[in-house]
């Protein structure tokens, strides 16, 4: 019995040594390292992949040297599990001596890394997670994605103005979903609207049919929908199958449900869906056209808003480094990032110097067909929207 024991322990020790060797390669001294923690496997993998792609694209376009320093990206997979995120962040900070940690596919992951960012004084660039509170958890957190109240309050106001009286809501049951619902509700009911039915669906949800039947039976003017990026396709398919489009129940919501990377496969039922969101692949600017074309060329499909979040995130890192002249102390970098303004494929954006959260235009869009493809066409712009979740305080 102990022969086996000996053997296995030796194998284990060998593996452990090999593991250490692989994980700690030698780096050039004047490199700036960025630890990128994303869900590359599991249900959120498409988020991770879009961000990773966008960063690759940005570095291809802008070179991998900033202020005389070479930029190196170290990608780690956390499978959207917060404990893995935390381990990965710690390893990156301690062993790889990264100057930034970035990525974070889901809210718990971003929150799990927050204390590490604070203690190590390293900027944490949140490129996906969209719950309002994240940036309050550490003075070193900067966000280049969005918050759900940003878009939900605007669609709430829009609904009131456009004669929608009764709304049924279907939202995923987790913090971003609850954020979206709460801020929509506040603005919609303040304008005299009425929520006739409220369903929270579990995050991992195979079949929307029964929930949609509930929506249909409530007979609202429109339904407010938030499902995370990736589930929108499924939702829209079943929305059409159930004939809710024929019953005259429109879909409104933050733009996650009509995410560009899946929009084309959703079928014609999605036509006329009105959403408020931060990015559309149809955004009419030269920069965006180039971005979309380059992304399509390299990765074969249309970029969604997650890709833009990553693209802007790496841009922010580049610009901050330029401003500090390549110095990588955390406080300096955060100071450099505060108030940074630039033109992104989604339009003009900036970092709020007070909250380190993103300030950006929110567009109201309608799904239309252009050249045989489905696009979110923007028809109304709300400029420089701050996170309403914090503006309140």
């Amino acid at each position, binding site marked *: 019995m102990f022969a086996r024991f000996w053997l296995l322990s030796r194998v284990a020790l060998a593996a452990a040594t090999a593991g250490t060797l692989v994980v700690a390669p030698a780096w050039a001294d004047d490199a700036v390292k960025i630890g990128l923690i994303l869900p590359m496997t599991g*249900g959120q993998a498409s988020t991770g*992949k879009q961000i990773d792609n966008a960063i690759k694209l940005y570095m291809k376009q802008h070179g991998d040297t900033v202020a005389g320093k070479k930029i190196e990206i170290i990608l780690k997979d956390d499978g959207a599990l917060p404990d893995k995120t935390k381990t990965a962040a710690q390893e990156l900070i301690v062993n790889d001596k990264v100057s930034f940690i970035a990525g974070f596919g889901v809210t718990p992951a971003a929150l799990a890394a927050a204390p590490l960012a604070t203690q190590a004084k390293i900027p944490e660039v949140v490129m996906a997670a969209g719950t309002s509170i994240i940036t309050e958890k550490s003075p070193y957190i900067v966000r280049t994605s969005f918050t759900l109240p940003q878009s939900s309050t605007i669609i709430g106001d829009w609904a009131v103005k456009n004669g929608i009286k009764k709304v049924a809501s279907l939202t995923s049951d987790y913090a971003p979903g609850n954020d979206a619902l709460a801020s929509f509700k506040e603005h919609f009911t303040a304008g005299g609207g009425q929520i006739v039915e409220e369903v929270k669906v579990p995050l991992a949800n195979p*079949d929307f049919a*029964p929930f949609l*039947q509930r929506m249909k039976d409530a007979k609202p003017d429109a339904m407010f929908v938030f499902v995370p990026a990736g589930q929108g396709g*499924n939702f829209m398919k079943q929305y059409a199958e159930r004939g809710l489009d024929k019953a005259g129940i429109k879909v409104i919501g933050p733009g996650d449900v009509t995410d560009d990377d899946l929009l084309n496969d959703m079928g014609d039922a999605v036509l006329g869906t009105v959403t408020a969101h931060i990015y559309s692949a149809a955004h009419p600017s030269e920069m965006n056209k180039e971005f979309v074309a380059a992304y399509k060329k390299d990765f074969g499909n249309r970029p969604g808003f997650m890709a833009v979040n990553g693209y802007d995130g790496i841009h922010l890192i580049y610009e901050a480094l330029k401003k500090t002249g390549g110095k990588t102390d955390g406080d300096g970098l955060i100071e450099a990032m505060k108030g940074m303004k630039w033109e992104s494929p989604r339009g003009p954006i900036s970092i709020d110097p007070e909250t380190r959260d993103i300030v950006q235009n929110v567009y109201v869009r309608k799904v239309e067909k252009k050249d045989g493809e489905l696009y979110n066409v923007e028809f109304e712009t709300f400029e420089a929207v701050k996170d309403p979740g914090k503006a309140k305080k």
Partner: protein
Amino acid sequence: MTSVLTNLFDGVAYGMLLFVLACGLAVTLGLMNFVNLAHGAFAMAGGYVCAVLVNQYGWPFFAGLPLAFIAPAVIGAVLERLLYRHLYTRSHLDQVLFSVGLVFMSVAAIDYIMGSSRIFINLPAALQGQFDVFGVGIGRYRLMLIVICGLLTAALQLVLARTRFGSRLRAAVDDPRAASGLGINVPQVFALTFAFGCGLAGLGGALSAEILGLDPYFPLKFMIYFLIVVTVGGSSSIIGPFLASLLLGIADVAGKYYVPKMGPFVIYTVMIVILIWRPHGLFGRAAR
């Protein structure tokens, strides 16, 4: 009242779908006593084959479905000959380890080839939307599911109960040694059965893309559902898993509709209660 019937209809369609997906597993697990957790990988393979043919090569949906059966069946047959047959006599734990390994590989491979986004299969217009029968909303696609799955179930039951192959299979399962003594080519029967089960899973995978969505994590996400169907249904016939699937489908849909927040409890509680009441499933054989 009408919404009750609509829900019932949806539940039946969902259950039928689960049955087609899981009945191959009922055969391998129930009859051949092999724990094949990689069953969902074959379903996923069928789904992706159909999706590629229909979306990229412009095949009609109904021409893609047979291929969604054939391709996984061939893959299944090859894997059975190469790998699975060596493991029939091994412990269940080894089988679990092996099939989970297979699941991991298939997940990563599909992710590599097809990307991690969820995909759909383009449907003909005739299958889209819903029509009303006396006020009860009937989804066209779900109706087709019920028809196809119902026919399949009937055919399966006939094959197993009435044909020579069916009796050979049952003999091979009950006592492989005696069966081979009687001149039955037991390995061949097993291989054919296994391949057929994989094919059915593939067909189920193609049919389920519309309702459950198809992404590389399909085998992991639905493994639990398949196992529930098989254990609750028991393994003496395919009627058990069939009824279990219907029960699961209806309970799931009704649970989500009437008590949206309690949905998952309904299924798991039903499963645990049934298994405690009848450890070998609703239609199980006590001796194994």
